[in-house]
C-alpha cells in the first residue's frame, strides 16, 4: 500500500460513522464521568440499545425513522432508569462493577436463542436503514474523493448527518455544563455528601446525568449501526466500552471537545498503526507477527494507552491539569 493510500484511510477514519458512534458515546461518558463522576463501564449497552431499538422499531413495528429514533432513545433511557434507580446510591466503584455486569448480561441476552425472535440472536439484525438513505437529498451519482478513498452519495449523506448530530450534542453539553444544573453535577463529582447537605437531590441529578449521557450514547449506537445496516451482539462487547473510555481520557474527560478530538485522533492513529504494521509484516520485518494478528495489536494498544493516560496525563489533551480528578 502506498503512503497516499494509508493517509486516505486515516483521513476517512477521522470522519467515519464508526468514529462518530464512539465520539457520541464519549460525549455521553463525559457527562457521566467527566462532569458527574459516575464510573459507567456499561456504555456499550446504551449504544446497543440505541441500535437495537431503532432496528427493531423499523423492522418489526414498521415505524418511520423518527419513531424508530425515539424508540431507540426510550430503550436506553429505560435501561438507564432500571440500572440507575437501584445502583446510583452505591459507592462509585460498585457502579463500575454493576454497569459492566449489566452490559454483559444484556449482550448475552440479546445474543441468546431465547431472544432470537426479537433480536436475531447472535446473528443480529440488518437492513433497517432504507428510509434513512431514502432521505438523502444529495444526487445519487455524487462521489467524494478522499485521496484514494471514494465515498458514495449515501456515504457522504451518512457522514453529514453524523457530524451534525455531534455538533448538536456538543452544543447541548455546552449549554448544560455552563448552567447551575451543570454546577450541581460538578459538585457531585467532587463530593456528593457535601452537595446533599446543601439541599440538592443528588440521586435525581445522577439519574438525569445517566439518562442523558446514555441517550447521547444511544444516538451514537444508531449511527454506528446505520452505516453498515447491521447490528450484532458482538459489536457491543466490553471492548466497545473500553475504547470509549480511551478516547474520552485521550481528549480530556471534563472538556467539551475532548471526546471529539480524542475519537478522531484515536481512530486515525489506529489506522496508521495498523497499516504500518501490516506493511512491516508483509515485508517480513516483524517475523513473529502474522498479518491476521495486526488487528489484535489494536486492542493491546487500547489497553496500553488507557493505562498510560491515567498514569501520566489524566487530564487528556485538552484538559487543564487541575480540571480533572477522579473522585477516588
Amino acid at each position, binding site marked *: 500500500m502506498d503512503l497516499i493510500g494509508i493517509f486516505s484511510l486515516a483521513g476517512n477514519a477521522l470522519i467515519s460513522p464508526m468514529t462518530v458512534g464512539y465520539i457520541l458515546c464519549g460525549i455521553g461518558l463525559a457527562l457521566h464521568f467527566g462532569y458527574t463522576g459516575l464510573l459507567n463501564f456499561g456504555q456499550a449497552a446504551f449504544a446497543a440499545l440505541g441500535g437495537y431499538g431503532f432496528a427493531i422499531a423499523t423492522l418489526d413495528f414498521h415505524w418511520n425513522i423518527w419513531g424508530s429514533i425515539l424508540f431507540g432513545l426510550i430503550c436506553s433511557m429505560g435501561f438507564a432508569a432500571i440500572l440507575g434507580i437501584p445502583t446510583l446510591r452505591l459507592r462509585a466503584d460498585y457502579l463500575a462493577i454493576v454497569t459492566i455486569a449489566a452490559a454483559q448480561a444484556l449482550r448475552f441476552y440479546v445474543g441468546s436463542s431465547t431472544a432470537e425472535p426479537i433480536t436475531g440472536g447472535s446473528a443480529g439484525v440488518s437492513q433497517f436503514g432504507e428510509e434513512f438513505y431514502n432521505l438523502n437529498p444529495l444526487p445519487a451519482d455524487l462521489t467524494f474523493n478522499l485521496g484514494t478513498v471514494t465515498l458514495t452519495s449515501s456515504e457522504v449523506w451518512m457522514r453529514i448527518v453524523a457530524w451534525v448530530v455531534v455538533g448538536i450534542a456538543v452544543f447541548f453539553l455546552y449549554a448544560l455544563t455552563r448552567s447551575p444544573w451543570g454546577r450541581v453535577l460538578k459538585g457531585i463529582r467532587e463530593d456528593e455528601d457535601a452537595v446533599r447537605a446543601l439541599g440538592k437531590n443528588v440521586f435525581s441529578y445522577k439519574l438525569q446525568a445517566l439518562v442523558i449521557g446514555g441517550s447521547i450514547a444511544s444516538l451514537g449506537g444508531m449511527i454506528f449501526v446505520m452505516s453498515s445496516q447491521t447490528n450484532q451482539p458482538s459489536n457491543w462487547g466490553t471492548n466497545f466500552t473500553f475504547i470509549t473510555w480511551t478516547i474520552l481520557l485521550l481528549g480530556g474527560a471534563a472538556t467539551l471537545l475532548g471526546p471529539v478530538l480524542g475519537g478522531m485522533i484515536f481512530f486515525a492513529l489506529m489506522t496508521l498503526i495498523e497499516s504500518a504494521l501490516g506493511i512491516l509484516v508483509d515485508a517480513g520485518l516483524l517475523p513473529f507477527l502474522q498479518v491476521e494478528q495486526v488487528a489484535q495489536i489494536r486492542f493491546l494498544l487500547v489497553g496500553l494507552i488507557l493505562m498510560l493516560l491515567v498514569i501520566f496525563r489524566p487530564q487528556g489533551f485538552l484538559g487543564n491539569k487541575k480540571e480533572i480528578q477522579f473522585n*477516588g
Partner: protein
Amino acid sequence: MSQLAAKSRTRAGALLGAIAILFSILLGASPAMAQAHTADDPSTYAFTIAGTLQEKDVPIPGVTITASQDAKSFQTKSDEFGEWTIMVPTDGHWKVTLDTTTIPKEFHLATKDGAIGEADLTQTDFAAVLFKFGSAAPVQAQSIWEQLVIRVFAGFNFGLMLAIAAIGITLIYGTTGLNNFAHGEMVTLGAMIMWLGYSFLHLNIVVAGLLAVLAAMAFGWFQDAAIWRPLRKRRLGLNQMMIVSIGFGIVSRYVLLLFFGGDTKDMSGGQTIITLGPIFTSNTTLISMAISVVALIGVALFLTRTRIGKATRAVSDNASLAASTGIDVEKIIRIVWLVAAALTGLAGVLYGLQFQANWSVGFDLLLLLFAAVTLGGLGTALGAAVGALIIGMVVEVSTIWMPSELKYVSALLILIVILVVRPQGVLGKKQRIG
C-alpha cells in the same frame, strides 16, 4: 522545587521503563512460541465463526464442526456448553458443516440437511451459525430432584473454584483498596501454562500444575513491583488505579492471545467417569474439588494462625494503624500479591482441566468473581468464599429453569439485586460518613 519536579520525573520515567520492560518481556518471548505454531496457525486469524449447539436448552458437547472455503478448512469441537468457535483467515462466505457421526445419540438434527450452514463474513469479522436440533424422540426425563442434585453438585464444584480466585481478589482489595480488573488474566495465565506444560509439553500433571501456579505467582509479583507499587507511591487515586487495571487487563489479555492463540485449549484425557447416584462426574472433578477445599482451608489457617496472616488482616483493617504498630505494610502487600496470584493461578489450572479454557476465560469469569466478592462484602476472605459458593450454585441451579446460555446472566442479575438490597454485602460492614 525543581529538584522535586526532577524527582517525580525520574519516578515517572522509572514507571514507564518498568511497563516497557514488561511488554518487551512478554512480547519478546512470543517469537519462539509463534514459530512453534505452524505457519498457518488458526488461532491468529482475524475472523470468527461461532455458535452454540443445543437441543431443548441441553448443550451438545463433542460435535466436530468444519468451516471450509475453497481449499481451506478448519475444525473444532463443541465444548461442554455446546459452544464452538472457529477462527478463519479470510473474509467472504464460509461453508460450515457438522460431522453427524459425532453427534451424541440422544440428540437429533431438526432436518436431514440441517448439518450444513453458511457463515457470511463479507461485512463483519464475526458470524454466528445456528444448527437447529429437536426431534420427536423423547428425552429421558429426570425428576426435578435428580436435576437439583446434579446442579447443586456442579454448582458446588464451580463455586469452590471461583472461591479460591475470589479470595485472591479480596485479599488484594483488602490490603490495597484496588478493584483489580486485571485479575482474570491470572486465571487465564494459570490455565494456559497448564495447557502448555500438560498437553503441549506432556509434563507430569502435578509438575505442570505447579509450574502454572509458579508462573501466576511470578506474574503477580511482577505486576505489583512494576505497576501497582510505583502507583501506590505516587498516591494515585483508587478509581484511577482501577482504570489502570482495566488497561493492564486488556494488554495482558491480548498478549496472551498473541502468545497462545484464540482456540480453546483441550486439556482432557486420562479421566475416569465416576457415578455417584444421579451424578456423573470424573476423577478430575473430584480431585479438583479436594484441591480447592485444601487450598481454602490453607488460606483460612494462613490468615488466622500465622503471624504474616494476622498482619495481613491488620493491614486490611486499617493500614496506617498497622504501619504504626511496626508492620511493614509494603512487605505484607507483596506477600498478599504472591498468595493471591498463587490461588488465582490454581483456579485457572482447575478450570482449564475441567472445562477447557481460551485466552479470554479469565475475563469471562472476572464478573462472576466480582459478583462473588461483592456478595460477600468487599474485603473479607470468608465473605468472598461464601459469595463464590452462592454464585456457583446460582449459575448452575438456574439452568434448571433457564436456558443454559443465560446462566451467567442470572448470576449478574443476582449481583445487581444484592447490591440494591444490601450494598455492603452479606458479611460486609458500612462505611463512616462525615
